């Protein structure tokens, strides 16, 4: 068996308060193989986003990584010098955020933002980077890419902006993309398009995807495996079919029971009052 692309072992993130210390990520362990999609699911405050930040060593203070290892392509990211870490962030591992309007620079043309991802890592000259920006906008199916690179983010719709974010994330040929609620801010028809796009690109570039979401519907559409987080810890992990069909942990069950299903029988209705 070959070693996984990403091997997170006993990762722990704590927040130092004035009186006590809180644990945001509690002894989290999981693996992700090349080309695989792991869904990290949980509600707000469960620690799923903080896990992603910790992998990239971007935990905001007063939070800090208190322990564990993050092995990526065989190296422990937590012990790398910051200079080498910068070569990994945005290049080998890239990040897609929920809200493209706040993640994109509002006063910079989208083509320049894509090109910057390449030039900042020294992967292309300015002219090469510009040509590559057009290719990438084509790859994420933005029509008329040659003209669109001159647009500012506010000139694009929400779905288009998310496509630009994905183009930036793909610019340096990453092995791993961390997508933190990539479609939560989008309308359902646009969400469907963006999920279709991610599925297509995942195959084309053999991407591993760490998909962070609170929506089990998105998990069912995208993930190979699922890890359920609750209060900083992974409480259940397994293949997507197993988790969705026969969840074992009480928390996973209650979370799945709260999701309204399409065309289901009333027995599964989450809004029927039950004695609690």
């Amino acid at each position, binding site marked *: 068996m070959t070693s996984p692309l990403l091997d997170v072992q006993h990762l722990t993130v704590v927040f130092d308060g004035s009186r006590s210390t809180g644990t945001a990520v509690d002894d989290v362990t999981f693996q992700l193989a090349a080309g695989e999609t792991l869904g990290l699911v949980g*509600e*707000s405050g469960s620690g799923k986003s903080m896990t992603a930040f910790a992998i990239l060593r971007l935990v905001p203070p007063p939070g800090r990584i208190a322990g564990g290892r993050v092995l990526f392509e065989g190296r422990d990211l937590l012990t790398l010098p910051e200079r080498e870490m910068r070569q990994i962030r945005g290049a080998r591992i890239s990040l897609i955020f929920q809200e493209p309007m706040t993640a994109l620079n509002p006063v910079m043309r989208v083509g320049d933002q894509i090109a910057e991802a390449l030039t900042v890592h020294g992967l292309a000259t300015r002219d090469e980077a510009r040509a590559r920006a057009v290719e990438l906008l084509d790859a994420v199916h933005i029509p008329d890419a040659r003209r669109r690179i001159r647009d500012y983010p506010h000139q694009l719709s*929400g779905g288009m902006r998310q496509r630009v974010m994905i183009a930036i994330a793909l610019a340096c040929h990453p092995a791993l993309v961390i997508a933190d609620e990539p479609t939560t801010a989008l*309308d*359902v*028809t*646009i*969400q*469907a*398009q963006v*999920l*279709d796009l991610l599925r297509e690109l995942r195959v084309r570039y053999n991407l591993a995807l760490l998909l962070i979401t*609170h*929506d*089990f*519907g*998105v998990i*069912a*559409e995208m993930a190979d495996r699922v890890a359920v987080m609750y209060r900083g810890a992974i409480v259940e992990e397994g293949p*997507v*079919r197993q988790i*969705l069909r026969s969840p074992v942990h009480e928390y996973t069950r*209650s*979370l*799945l*029971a*709260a*999701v*309204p*299903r*399409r*065309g289901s029988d009333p027995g599964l*209705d*989450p*809004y029927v*009052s039950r004695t609690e």
Partner: protein
Amino acid sequence: MTQPPLLEVRRLVKHFVRKQGVWQPSTVVKAVDEVSFTVEAGEMFGLVGESGSGKSTTGRCILRLIEPTSGDVLFRGENILTFSRPRMRQARRDMQIVFQDPYSSLNPRMRAGDIVEEPLIIHRLGAKTERRERVAELFELVGLDPSHVTRYPHEFSGGQRQRIGIARALALHPAFIVADEPVSALDVSIQAQVVRLMLDLKERLKLTYLFIAHDLRLVEHICTRVAVMYLGRVVEMGATREIFRGPRHPYTRALLSAVPVLDPDAPRQRVPVDTTSFDPAAPLRQVDAAHWAAV
């Protein structure tokens, strides 16, 4: 049936004028374009659509939080758009709104009890002690601890904040509530609790809701009838079951096919939104006993 519907919206129109610049002519955005529907007493009527469809604007026009450009809004048979200011203020006791975002819709500097009491003060109802009693009663009604009236909004969770918003809306004993995406900002387990509360209150207080939502899975479970809006118009309307089982309008079909399904092996037949496949100006026509579509 001799009773008129509780709410009747007739050919409601709201145009926003957008000024493009000094030299360009201003353009008119038809946010709500000839929208008509009725809501029967005791019903939970769903108004669904994506952002920009005009569903929230419709909800606000019905309460005259935004003045409509034209059309009629009949509440218990009376056209409230003709009401004077004082008369409208009286009418609002019967028609309330619950907003989407429990983080921004509550005044952060006011205590929770004062937020719920404020409508009673505005309408000069009761002496101070009576009002305080009513607030405690409302807290209990929505499942909040009455001893928490002195707390500030930030001391409550998202779900609890939405309960404060609901308590405030119920303060004046309304018959009709516009719920504008009341649970979309909440975690899914909290959503279920708040929806259960709203359904429970509907029975206990005999409420009627206009439930505005973009989550079709939710609407399918709780609404008896539903209207689908697209670009300011109702494109399909009728019994929830009919619309979800046999959507007639191409946009409704696309919308339903885009909803993620919990089964990883379910066949996925995504229908893209194809604006050339329908006439955006087509009027609604009856396609079945309880089913209308603009086809």
